[in-house]
């Protein structure tokens, strides 16, 4: 109660944007806008151009076609692709200069410069070749599992899609959900309790596990949303702190109530068979039905954001919370509900991780998914389908990274380097533009 009272003076003074009521709200849409703004500048023009094209006929159609070309060449899609390319190049340089073959060949560079170049080529092509084969198809592998890495890619992508959606959704309301990690852990913990402590008939059991996981994640995300709405506590800080609290909490539970009595490690018993996602491609591949849940979630979130009233409210709040409030929208309710949904999505990511891939709950169930989710959402430019494809790309990096570590002896950490560089470059389009001397599309888009 007193929290809402406190918000009033803060929001009435326009000069204090950092006041508790809205520290993140005005800053984040504006600044996230750097990736988002290009999308926003491109997007409204596209439907309007199409609208024109439907009615009058040829000339406008051409302009819409050239619009598409321009969009691809200088717009966000091209920037994303170039960002990936530049990041891979930098990663390649790192791989080459730390390779002993390259450094020894460089020792006699002036005697035989071609040897150095050959060594560099060998080093990079070996590493990225292994990455590619591990993520897609490897004709040389001995087993079928090894040969079709594409399914491993999709397995890794599944939790990334869901948690990426979680970050994306919160983004659109102007909230920065760094707490996917905690929400995944809580989701997995709730799912685990239902999954290995309770016996239920098949079908219903899996459904119950998913509901429990969503509730767990929603609870954890909801805390941040509630505190943001009622006290103005910055969601970035609250979610970071909740991540660590979640790790400690699950460790405590795994040492006591949830511990597998037959193990000396803090891990849970195995999930019941009825609580697990069915495997999609038989026992040889890890790919499970969680992927279908993830794809359904993309469709639902896409509908929610673009077609529903609630989504309109969310986007309005994200664009300008003050204007949304003036228009009669309940901004604080928006913050709470979006964090509940966002948390539920991350919780579902935890469910797919536990009931699909890991089968046993441990404190590291979230792995790096929580932070990867942020990079996925950024690469996907905070759009549901963009997030979907970004998640598949990062899933491929994960699947391929493992094969690269084994076959080319390049540490999987290089994947983290490449991923973070991609996001940095995408977040700063002017940088990529200046590297490739691309003309800025934004002014054209606005005038068109």
């Amino acid at each position, binding site marked *: 109660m007193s929290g809402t009272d406190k918000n009033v003076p803060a929001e009435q003074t326009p000069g204090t944007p950092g006041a508790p009521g809205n520290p993140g709200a005005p800053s*984040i849409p504006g600044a996230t806008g750097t990736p988002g703004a290009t999308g926003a500048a491109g997007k409204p023009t596209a439907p309007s151009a199409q609208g024109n094209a439907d009615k009058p006929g040829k000339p406008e159609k051409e302009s819409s076609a050239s619009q598409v070309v321009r969009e691809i060449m200088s717009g966000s899609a091209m920037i994303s692709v170039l960002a990936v390319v530049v990041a891979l190049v930098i990663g390649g340089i790192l791989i080459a200069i730390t390779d002993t073959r390259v450094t020894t060949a460089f020792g006699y560079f002036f005697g035989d410069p071609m040897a150095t170049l050959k060594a560099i080529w060998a080093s990079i092509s070996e590493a990225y070749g292994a990455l590619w084969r591990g993520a897609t198809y490897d004709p040389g592998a001995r087993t079928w599992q090894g040969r079709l890495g594409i399914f491993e890619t999709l397995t890794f992508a599944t939790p990334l899609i869901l948690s990426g959606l979680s970050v994306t959704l919160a983004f659109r309301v102007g909230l920065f959900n760094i707490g996917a990690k905690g929400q995944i852990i809580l989701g997995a913990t709730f799912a685990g309790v239902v999954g290995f402590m309770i016996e239920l008939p098949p079908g219903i059991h899996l459904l119950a596990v998913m509901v429990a996981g969503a509730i767990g994640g929603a609870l954890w995300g909801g805390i941040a949303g509630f505190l943001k709405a009622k006290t103005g506590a910055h969601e970035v*800080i609250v979610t970071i702190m909740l991540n660590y609290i979640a790790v400690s909490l699950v460790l405590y539970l795994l040492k006591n109530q949830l511990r597998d009595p037959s193990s000396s490690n803090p891990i849970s018993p195995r999930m019941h068979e009825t609580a697990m996602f069915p495997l999609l491609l038989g026992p040889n591949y890890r790919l499970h039905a969680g992927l279908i849940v993830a794809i359904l979630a993309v469709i639902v979130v896409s509908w929610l954001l673009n077609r529903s009233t609630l989504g309109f409210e969310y986007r309005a709040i994200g664009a300008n919370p003050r204007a949304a409030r003036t228009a009669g929208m309940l901004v604080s309710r928006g913050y709470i509900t979006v964090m509940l949904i966002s948390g539920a999505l991350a919780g579902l990511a935890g469910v797919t991780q536990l009931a699909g891939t890991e089968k046993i709950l441990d404190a590291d169930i979230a792995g790096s998914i929580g932070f990867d989710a942020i990079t996925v959402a950024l690469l996907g430019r905070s759009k549901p389908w963009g997030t979907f494809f970004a998640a598949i790309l990062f899933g491929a990096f994960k699947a391929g990274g493992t094969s690269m570590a084994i076959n080319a002896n390049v*540490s999987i*950490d290089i994947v*983290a380097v490449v991923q973070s560089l991609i996001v940095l470059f995408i977040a700063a389009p002017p940088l990529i533009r200046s590297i490739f001397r691309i003309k800025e599309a934004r002014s054209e888009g606005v005038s068109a």
Partner: protein
Amino acid sequence: MSIITKSETPKVADAVAVRSWKLPILLGVLAVFAVVVFVVLGPSGTATFRISQDTDAWQVPNLVVPAKAVGVLVSIICVALAYLAWRQTRDAGKIAKWVVMTFAVVFVVGMMVWIIGGTTTQNITLVGLFSGAMLITTPILFGSMSGVLSERAGVVNIAIEGQLLAGAFTAALVASITGNAYVGLFAAAVAGVLVSVLLALFSIKYVVNQIIVGVVLNVLVSGLTGFLFEKIMKTKVDGLTIYNQPAHLPNISIPLLSEIPIIGPTLFRQSIIGYFMLILVVALWFGLFRTRWGLRVRAVGEHPKAADTVGINVNRTRVLNVLAGGAVAGIGGAYFTLVAVSSFSKDMTGGLGFIALAALIFGRWNPIGAALAALLFGVAGNLQSILSLAGTPIDGQFLAMLPYALTILAVSGFVGRALAPAADGEPYIKE
């Protein structure tokens, strides 16, 4: 005049009328907790605090306290203070500072006695507790000073973790190659600055969201150090990992001061990093709040437009502060590999950068406050590792949660109000 004052009076009254009940409620809950846990569930044994080490010049006798009696006493004081806080809120609208401070101190003492009285060993060396805590406090403190520097100028620094890690890695590598720990220390500062260069470049020049940059830089540094660790540091030459055997910074004892009980061994038997830390906290506090430089930095962080209007170069101030913060955090990172342990390992900062962020917020963006918060978090962390060895009434995991839970309480206004500099996180684009 009189008319104006009259018209303003109700406003003031309104402002006073907005009283927050959060703090009295929190104190009340804690007081009830004290009564239930310290008295009803309290241990009946004694708790022994060893104050002197055997090697100390001045021997101070051990402090032996009956746990139950202390629990009763602590609970009575807590309940009284909570009642006082409630009355003050009702009558005056706000609580005197000393009430909260005393409550906190008394509660922590009660907690310590309860924990130690309940352990099987039932005694604890205070020196060990505090000097062990310094192992955790030092990096946290350097990290939070990095945060103070950049956030006071209006740049959110989530990349503290990355700066610490870069410092730790570089210090280990350079100190191993040169065989000189001081060169390693310098290199660590440079590495921290390099991370800051990226932070400044992307957040100030390219106006990318500062939180995004920070999060991504952490991943980048973790990946980069992890990759180079595998590639370089694990390479064995003649069976030795020669690139991961850094020279150590020696401990320097200050003659008289190091003999003071508890404080001496904790603060005055340290490496050069530790002394630098003490100077840094005081210097930063003085610099920020008592000098022209500090006024300018704070102006840039609170109201960049106004600062620009009076001729302060906003973005240059921000860049310089972010770079300085990077150097500070880099040195803090060097503490891991040059003092605390003797080699680098992957992701060895283990989230201390985020605790530093918590300390920064809990200390309300004030160097002294952040330092005290870092000390509190360090003690909690060390207590956790001590307690994991002895059977205790409280699980170590709950102590591990403490810094984070306190920070959430602080940002949501239960423990005073932690307010960031007004323009923190807002890029400044000159019109």
